[in-house]
């Protein structure tokens, strides 16, 4: 009798344990896309009974908070979001679980994702570790009202013997930058702060000139005509066609110059597009549009790709519940809801959705931007490469190093890092 009673109570306890809701904990960055996820989470809890705890922190804190949890045998995060910066490092250290078996078992369709994003924050050397969460590829934001102005059009035609229109090539854009710089108004505003703002922005200049970071064998290809031209153009834009101080601007300061109507163009992260139409942040509501950074020819783009991916860490206390959440949050239905709220999509079917297009007419431009975008050099030492780029580019902009010397110095350190990582033989 006593035995039965004990057994019964133990079983009751056991059931109580499993009946009390499971919780999926995720560390996330405080950005708009996180807010859109947060708003939808109650639906998930209602459907599955799984609670979701989103710990939202500043970007600067994320890496230092994540690493100890990832190194531990049992960490506190069920799922994580991974910046493309960290992908190489996380994969090398073996901190993420492969998702291929789960994807296969549940018939989750990863072909819906834009291929460049799947390469960036999805697969590493053939294994799927992440699902692309949102993109922050960079685009050219420019003033449509200035392009449409009749006097500007006549002046531009007289000066350059070509029409003033949405720029089709990189050279055409640079002419417009020169043209619009006059009377305290600037052709362009740049984000020249070390390390990531300058490194990320300059990458667009490199790609626009037809350059890339490395060849198929990871041999650096920076000290080339394209690289030198990119530095020269970047330096000229900052020192001659941009506001005083853009050599030290972060993206918020540069955005403010553009949003206060003091510049014609700004190459920046695409999630800023919605902010231009927010009267509390912008004096140029309805006057700014986004497009892919133009390339050497009209069919090529020069945009830098960037994105976050969802992953399940090896140290996850409840990987199955985490996968249930990932599957849900990345389903077409929820991805569409996030996009409608203002999120930056990663799936082609969301980009092509009629409801989304009706609300955001500029999404075809964003899709083209992603399809023609270029990836940064992603490997174990990406953060170090960004540091090196930041330092050398900043020295070149300050006139303390020639473009050739700066690029040579970057190549030396890049080669060392690529060798250390085993990418370059």
């Amino acid at each position, binding site marked *: 009798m006593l035995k039965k009673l004990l057994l019964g109570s133990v079983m009751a306890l056991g059931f109580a344990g499993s009946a009390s809701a499971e919780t999926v904990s995720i560390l996330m960055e405080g950005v708009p896309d996180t807010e859109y996820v947060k708003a939808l989470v109650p639906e998930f809890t209602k459907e599955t009974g799984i609670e979701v705890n989103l710990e939202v922190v500043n970007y600067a804190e994320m*890496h*230092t908070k994540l*690493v100890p949890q990832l*190194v531990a045998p049992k960490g506190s995060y069920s799922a994580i979001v991974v910046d493309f910066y960290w992908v190489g*490092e996380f994969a*090398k*250290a073996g901190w993420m679980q492969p998702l291929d078996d789960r994807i296969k078992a549940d018939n989750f369709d990863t072909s819906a994702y834009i291929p460049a994003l799947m390469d960036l924050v999805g697969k590493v050397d053939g294994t799927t570790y992440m699902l692309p969460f949102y993109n922050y590829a960079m685009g050219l934001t420019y003033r449509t009202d200035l392009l449409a102005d009749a006097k500007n059009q006549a002046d531009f035609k007289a000066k350059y013997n070509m029409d003033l229109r949405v720029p089709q090539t990189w050279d055409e854009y640079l002419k417009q930058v020169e043209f619009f710089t006059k009377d305290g108004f600037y052709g362009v505003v740049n984000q*020249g*702060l*070390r*390390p990531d703002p*300058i490194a990320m922005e300059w990458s667009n200049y490199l790609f626009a000139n037809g350059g890339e970071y490395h060849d198929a064998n990871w041999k650096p290809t920076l000290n080339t005509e394209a690289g030198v031209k990119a530095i020269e153009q970047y330096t000229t834009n900052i020192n001659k066609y941009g*506001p*005083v*101080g*853009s*050599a*030290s*601007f972060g993206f918020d*300061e540069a955005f*403010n*110059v553009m949003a*206060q109507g*003091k510049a014609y163009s700004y190459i920046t992260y695409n999630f800023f597009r919605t902010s231009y139409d927010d009267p509390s942040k912008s004096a140029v509501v309805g006057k700014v549009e986004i497009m892919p950074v133009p390339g050497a020819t009209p069919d090529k783009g020069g945009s830098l790709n960037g994105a976050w991916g969802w992953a399940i860490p090896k140290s996850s206390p409840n990987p199955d519940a985490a996968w249930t959440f990932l599957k849900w949050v990345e389903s077409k239905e929820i991805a569409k809801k996030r996009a409608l709220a203002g999120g930056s999509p990663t799936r082609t079917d969301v980009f092509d959705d009629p409801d989304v297009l009706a609300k955001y007419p500029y999404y075809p431009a964003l899709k083209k931007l992603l399809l023609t975008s270029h990836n940064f050099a992603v490997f*174990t*030492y990406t*953060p*170090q490469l960004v*540091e090196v780029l*930041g*330092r050398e580019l*900043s*020295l070149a*902009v*300050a006139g*303390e190093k020639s473009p050739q010397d700066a690029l040579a110095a970057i190549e030396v350190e890049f080669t060392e890092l690529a060798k250390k990582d085993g990418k370059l033989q």
Partner: protein
Amino acid sequence: MMVRMGQASNAADRRDRRFGYALAAPSLTVLFLIILFPVLSALFTSLHEYTLIAPNFDTFTGLANFKAALGDAEFRHSAWLTLRFVIGVVLLEFVIGFGVALMLNKVERFKPVYYAILLCPLLMNPVIVGLIWRMFLHPNLGIVNYLLGTIGISPVNWLGDTKIAIWTVILVDIWHQVSFMIVLLLAGLSSLPKEPYEAARVDGANAFQCFVHITLPMMRTVIIVTLLIRFIFAVKTYDLIYIMTRGGPGVATDLVSYFIYRTAFVSLNIGEASAMSILLLTAILALTAYLYRYMRSLN
């Protein structure tokens, strides 16, 4: 009788002392754990190849990390820059701080009001100071250049010019920390005895002579302690750089603390970062020991 009394009091003394140690033991243990343990652990780490990608002590490298640090031209640059920054900041803050302290020492009315105003910057978090000044100094939208513009001075590129940026950081640091100097020096000044000054006045000394021959010598200990504390804090300057310049433009404001931070948390090379920290600690300890002995020799 005398001898026996002496012995008894000695025994009592010893008991007292032992009891004192026993009382102090818990706090000494805590101090040991939170100060000495991290230092020793850093020393241990600095002798190994320890990175966050492979966090283990499998490879003993001896002094290789120290060699790598000292052989790194960037590290030497940031150390040299830090030295100049520290000297600049401490000297300027001392001169301004002493001047203000001397003036305030004479003030009779509203002293608490002045204190409250002076302490405001000191109570602010350095990150907030950095952010506020970044906004003030924004070349196009900031208030500083706007005010300069109203008197016909063209916009200054506060943080984007390699020659100006370090001075901008020094100025902001002075704004933030000078009240620390003022408060400490003022405390020293107000505790000085009045008699020597009265005697000097009777002998016909003027204010300058009083300052050089009475105030300075009597204030020497306070001055050294103030300089020392400020010096140690200045070497550790990190938050202002992180918020305001990230070491740029170029490498114009790349102070050593920020450099070590990057080695540890961007390069993930904890071993080399520990070696750099140990080098920095050694330099600070040497200077502290020297100043401390100098101070003792005065007394």
